[in-house]
């Protein structure tokens, strides 16, 4: 099953994606054509949002970093999220703003001190994120700093959450990104430095992961700077195709 969060008749509701993605079934059973949907980021209110830096060796090398001994994690708030077909503002001085296609694991039940071998049982579903970075705003304090990674509407998420059972092995999925139609990222989740199960073991080793929490698992190589007006498409096999528009920040 695929679950989308949409704005409908004045409130946010979860809807089931049906008819091969052509329609959404609303909580009251009514159907809405997918083209009519106002997509919101599919996230549980209050959920903790984890993200990974340098979790693909080829992307680390591209940026000049050595492999990490421990996952490089950071957190995001909810104002940075934006739904499918939403707009992301590009500041006028952000010449080095680039998209990062990432597989997102959604936690399904409380996880504390979970072993890697058991960890995928704690994942209820997957979605897609485009974790934009603006390299001009990087500073070497709690890097990547929030001025880079927690700007409003710079983390498109969606279009929906796919049940984990429909995805199978999360470490065997292709990821691609296009910017204005040009392919700029093409990778495989097989190349993660810390796979999802290992990340859950690491995080649950010092805190409790809760249902709805999201783990954005990092991005492969391919740094392409975007311009206002670009359509950016991040797609992950078996999960979804997330569309975002870059617009000039006012």
């Amino acid at each position: 099953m695929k679950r989308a969060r949409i704005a409908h008749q004045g409130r946010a509701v979860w809807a089931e994606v049906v008819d091969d993605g052509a329609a959404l079934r609303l909580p009251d059973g009514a159907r809405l054509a997918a083209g009519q949907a106002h997509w919101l980021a599919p996230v549980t209110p209050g959920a903790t949002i984890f993200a990974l830096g340098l979790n693909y060796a080829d992307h680390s090398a591209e940026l000049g970093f050595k492999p990490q001994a421990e996952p490089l994690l950071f957190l995001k708030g909810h104002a940075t999220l934006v739904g499918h077909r939403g707009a992301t503002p590009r500041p006028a001085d952000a010449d080095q703003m680039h998209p990062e296609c990432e597989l997102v694991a959604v936690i399904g039940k409380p996880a504390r001190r979970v072993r890697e071998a058991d960890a995928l049982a704690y994942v209820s579903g997957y979605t897609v994120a485009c974790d934009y970075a603006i390299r001009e705003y990087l500073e070497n304090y709690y890097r990547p700093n929030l001025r880079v990674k927690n700007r409003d509407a710079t983390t498109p998420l969606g279009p929906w959450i796919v049940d984990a059972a429909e995805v199978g092995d999360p470490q065997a999925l292709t990821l691609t990104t296009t910017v204005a139609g040009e392919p700029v990222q093409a990778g495989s989740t097989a190349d993660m430095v810390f796979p999802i199960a290992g990340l859950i073991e690491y995080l649950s080793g010092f805190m409790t992961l809760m249902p709805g929490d999201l783990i954005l698992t990092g991005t492969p190589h391919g740094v392409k700077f975007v311009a206002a007006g670009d359509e950016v498409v991040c797609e992950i096999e078996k999960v979804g195709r997330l569309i975002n528009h870059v617009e000039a920040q006012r």
Partner: protein
Amino acid sequence: MIAGAVYGVALNDRQQLAALGEALSQPPYARPPAAPVLYIKPRTCLSGFGAAVPLPPELSEVEAAPTLGLLLADDAGAIGAACLALDVCEPHASYYRPAIRQRCRDGFLPLGGFAPFDAALAGAPIVTRIDGALVHRWELTRLVRGVAQLLADIGGFMTLQAGDLLLVGLPGDAPRARAGQSLSVEMDGLPTLHTRFEPEAAA
């Protein structure tokens, strides 16, 4: 109440920056921070009112930083309420990478009760006692960016939303606490924060 994220500000204490001095111009930092150095405490850091802070067996001692929390009333920087907060973390010397493992453990953010915010609050000392003995005292006049400046500078690159909580800064000389100790944080005009540190219950 808190409906959104909890944001904190590191390296916002003049005394701490002065003590770090030239180190902030050396690798890995290269230069002193320009923007506020923010971090996020996840919802699992919040515990019930008056609950103990659980200390895992691997931590013999934690840093317990008393500060002021501001609850945002709208998305434009209006403050709806204030509380005392104790930002607990595993001591860490490096500010280069986000201190997730150090700052985000369950129950690592005890809060006091909420009261109306009055700008005059910022002039009162924040006093911390452990087992009744005064161990720390500081004033928010030590902040590099005071409340108004913080809200303006953070608002320059992201929206603090209604229901978010902002911790205004941490004293660089924050006290340490161990299992078995009780701690209180007092500030004129706000309800006193009481907590204690206990060994984490076995899973």
